[in-house]
């Protein structure tokens, strides 16, 4: 039941809309069927499956709006859900930020490329491949595999119809040496689970773990760093690039409370804030990271440039803020792409006289929204580079750095890889600021 076809979903939504007497009404369906397996100490700890679908109905009377949801779809429940949305709307205050529902829209068709369904047996095998590799080498693995298929559908009284199905699987593994003196990490997310190789990823994490034993302490300070993609974006935590791109919100900048605020008023759209090699865009049609065709308002997504040659080309405008400022609204993208070159991380290391290779950054938190200053720590594989080669592992370090400063200190940009629904290259950055040492392994 969790995954409805386009026809099934629209038929259900069409029926829901016949039950309303509201001025405007929008009905949305969301469903996901997925499964996960979690392991630690080379043994499975939990495994679960999720199979759910939910309907949301938004009813509007003038500028008053109410939303109700349900997850059963018999006629009585559907009618009750619509009725509840209407009751909530009648009680709600008028919204000063009201914008009418959208009418019919034209949507792109992002590719959906899953060729394999991740069954419980496949999940167990994928986990076993990882655990067995570590057990054989006297290493300890802890990992998580979660994947499934989702769909979203919308329909409203103004004639909007939208539907999209997507698949996603993410796997991450932390490998530690038996004595706890070394730790390594690898992560990947894919649209097609057939492309996932947990054994190869675990080998990468295992190499980092064994290579990081006997880490030396270095003095905190400014260093040239090579940040691998897992140090730049994350699906389960804040990240340097995610925080930057996610913060390109016009309203908060116009209100004066963002790093994008312009002195004297307004925002910094159109200004060159970064090195001219920085280009960031979103593209729902990208084959490697297919995106959402529409956002929560039903607005169609399209290829959108956020940063071009270091210049902020676009900012996010909600429908309300766009109308107020007489500009086009921006659909929420669900990922972004940073362009790069052809060099792998290994190539970047070869071209580095002195520097630090960072596998992953962790517990990143905003310190100052005015400058987008973040703090956080290296984790699971930090190495000193000398004369184009990794010389020795180093102890983990805390950084205090702003991605705005970081993207002005670009030395080299590598080949983008997919991570956390984004395409991101490894970056070589000069003068990255580390402020203290950590004993954590």
């Amino acid at each position, binding site marked *: 039941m969790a995954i409805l076809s386009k026809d099934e979903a629209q038929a259900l939504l069409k029926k829901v809309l016949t039950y309303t007497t509201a001025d405007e009404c929008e009905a949305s369906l*969301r469903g*996901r069927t997925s499964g*996960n397996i979690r392991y*630690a*100490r*080379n*043994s*499975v*700890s939990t*495994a679960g499956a999720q199979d759910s679908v*939910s309907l*949301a109905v938004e009813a509007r009377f003038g500028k008053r709006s109410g939303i*109700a*949801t349900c997850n059963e779809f018999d006629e009585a429940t559907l009618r009750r859900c619509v009725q*509840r949305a209407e009751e*909530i709307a009648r009680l709600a205050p008028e*919204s*000063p930020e009201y914008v009418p529902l959208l009418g019919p829209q034209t949507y792109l068709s992002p590719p959906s490329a899953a060729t394999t369904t991740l069954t419980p047996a496949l999940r167990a095998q994928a*986990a076993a491949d990882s655990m067995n590799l570590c057990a054989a080498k006297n290493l300890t693995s*802890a990992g*998580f595999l*979660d994947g499934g298929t989702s769909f979203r559908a919308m329909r409203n009284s103004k004639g909007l119809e939208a539907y999209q199905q997507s698949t996603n699987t993410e796997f*991450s593994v*932390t490998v*530690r040496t038996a004595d*706890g003196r070394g*730790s390594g990490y690898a992560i990947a997310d894919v649209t097609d689970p057939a492309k996932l190789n947990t054994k190869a990823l675990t080998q990468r994490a295992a190499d980092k773990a064994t290579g990081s034993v006997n880490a030396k302490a270095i003095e905190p300070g400014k260093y040239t760093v090579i940040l691998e993609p897992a140090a730049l974006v994350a699906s389960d935590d804040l990240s340097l690039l*995610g925080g930057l791109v*996610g913060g390109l*919100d016009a*309203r908060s900048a116009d*209100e004066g409370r*963002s790093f994008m*605020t*312009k*002195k*004297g*008023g307004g925002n910094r759209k159109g200004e060159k*804030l970064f090195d001219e090699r920085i280009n960031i865009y979103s593209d729902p049609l990208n084959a490697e990271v297919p995106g959402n065709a529409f956002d*929560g308002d039903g607005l169609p997504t399209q290829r959108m440039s956020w940063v071009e040659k270091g210049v902020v080309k676009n900012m996010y405008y909600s429908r309300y803020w766009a109308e107020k400022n007489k500009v086009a609204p921006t659909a*929420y*993208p*669900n990922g972004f792409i940073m362009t790069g070159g052809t060099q792998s991380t290994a190539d970047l290391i070869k071209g580095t006289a002195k520097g630090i290779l960072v596998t992953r950054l*962790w*517990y990143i*938190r*905003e310190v*100052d*929204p005015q*400058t987008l200053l973040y*703090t956080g*720590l290296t*984790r699971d594989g930090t190495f000193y580079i000398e004369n184009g080669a990794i010389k020795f592992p180093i102890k983990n370090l*805390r950084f*205090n750095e702003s991605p705005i400063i970081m993207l002005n200190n670009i030395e080299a940009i590598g080949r983008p890889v997919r991570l956390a629904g984004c395409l991101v290259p490894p970056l070589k950055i000069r003068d990255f600021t580390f402020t*203290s*040492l*950590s004993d*954590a*392994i």
Partner: protein
Amino acid sequence: MNRRDFVGLTGLATGALWLPNFPSLAGNLVDPAQLLEPGLDVAAKKRLADVALNAAKAAGATYADIRIQRTLNQSVFTREKQVQGIASIESLGVGIRVIANGTWGFASTNNVTDAGIAKTAQQAVAIAKANSKVQKEPVKLAPQRGYGDVAWKTPIEKNAFEVPIKEKADLLLAANATALANGASFVNSALFQVNEQKYFASTDGSYIDQDIHRIYPTFGVTVVDRASGKFRSRQSLSSPMGMGYEYLTPKAADKVAGPTGSDVIGYKNSYDILEDAARAAKQTKQKLTCKSVVPGKYDLILDPHHLGLTIHESVGHPTELDRVLGYEANFAGTSFATLEWRKKNIPYGSKNVTIVADKLQPNSLGAVGYDDEGVKTKEWTIIDQGKLIDYQKIRDQAAIVGQSASDGCCYSQSWRDVQFQRMANISLRPSATKRSVDELVSGVDKGIYIAGNGSFSIDQQRYNSQFGGQVFYAIEKGKITEMLEDVAYQTNTLEFWGACQGSCDASDYRFAGFFNDGKGQPSQSSAVSHGSATTRFNGVNVINTARKIG
């Protein structure tokens, strides 16, 4: 803590770009009146529980438990003069956990019927049997006697769900108006209320009916100086509490003044949102023009609202036994305080540091009668005068550390998710001898008083941390002199607690609470409080966080 807490209310814009505007799968948005309807009666729940336990045993389980849970959530969001949103959410379902072939299995459903529950119990057993093929060590469950039919309820005075939404929205709008009248450029405020109606039954013979309430009023104030492009913010000094709406009726006895010259008021078991909103606006204006801190070593005087977060990160998490053993290695991390480290008798802190875990403290977020595997809750000591003496553990962990009983700190965020070890309330004992906050400050030659928790970050083994705050005051020669900005301190957990010089007495003791502490994969949220009195730490490294961007 996870994103939902740290994003805060003034930072809503940052990160908002990726938030979907779609229905959540966590529960159903309903008419607020539905939240007042009674759920299933106890007799019906007991009958359904027996369906699950019998089905699980028939399928081959050697142990089974079921949680029949109805969770109610209501949130009210406002900004400046407008109500932005009201959400009333109801979620009902059952989670069934079993041991078969010495291995855990779990399944859940929102089909709360005999057939749905029996099928889910069978699924849980099937998952356990499937996983047992790759399981290396069978689960050893600490014995637990059944309690028969028992009940527990958060001792609330006023059920927040019975308060009309208009009254709640009006209170938030009044707080906003007060902040705006005192110079705020923007103010966001919110009220979150939770009621977990949780029925637990197990093959041990327990049938436990609990009614758990939590509340969290909060706001964020921002002042903008358009000419310079500079802005500053201050979050509320409220705490989420295990209380009803009575938390929002201010009582003079619950207000605790900070040191003379600081203009800080902390709150115990009731909160004056109007007073705090006015003070927040005034302090935020001051933050725009006050002196930027000179980095260096300072003696820190930390108020309980601030210190609660430091306790959470540097004692609460590293003493969770699942982290110690490596079960969280791939996400939240492990712990420096391993079983081997404990044997070395290295001090965790100075003699002034006694820290207790507690699932009983009245008004705390962690207070329940029984945990989510049917263990009666208790208080126990984690650090005794600077020495680590115990961890936080649940039934399948006790044997690993040579103990025979759980500490009663097992929790699941919903019927949908499997229960696992979560943090109890972890609190620093106040001074047994009388000591005021002014007395604490009077002994400091060069220091900083920090009130309110702010930015926070700590490594995956809980050694190196960095904490900000909401307001900062310079201390010179025993007196508060002026407000400071751009303050954060960096420390190592053992150095920090080793530098603890003692706290104020119990009259200054109060909670800092966290509504959404995240752990596990898939990540689950839990709520926890940390009590302390204002405390002094000597010689802590303070950095200046001001930067310039192009």
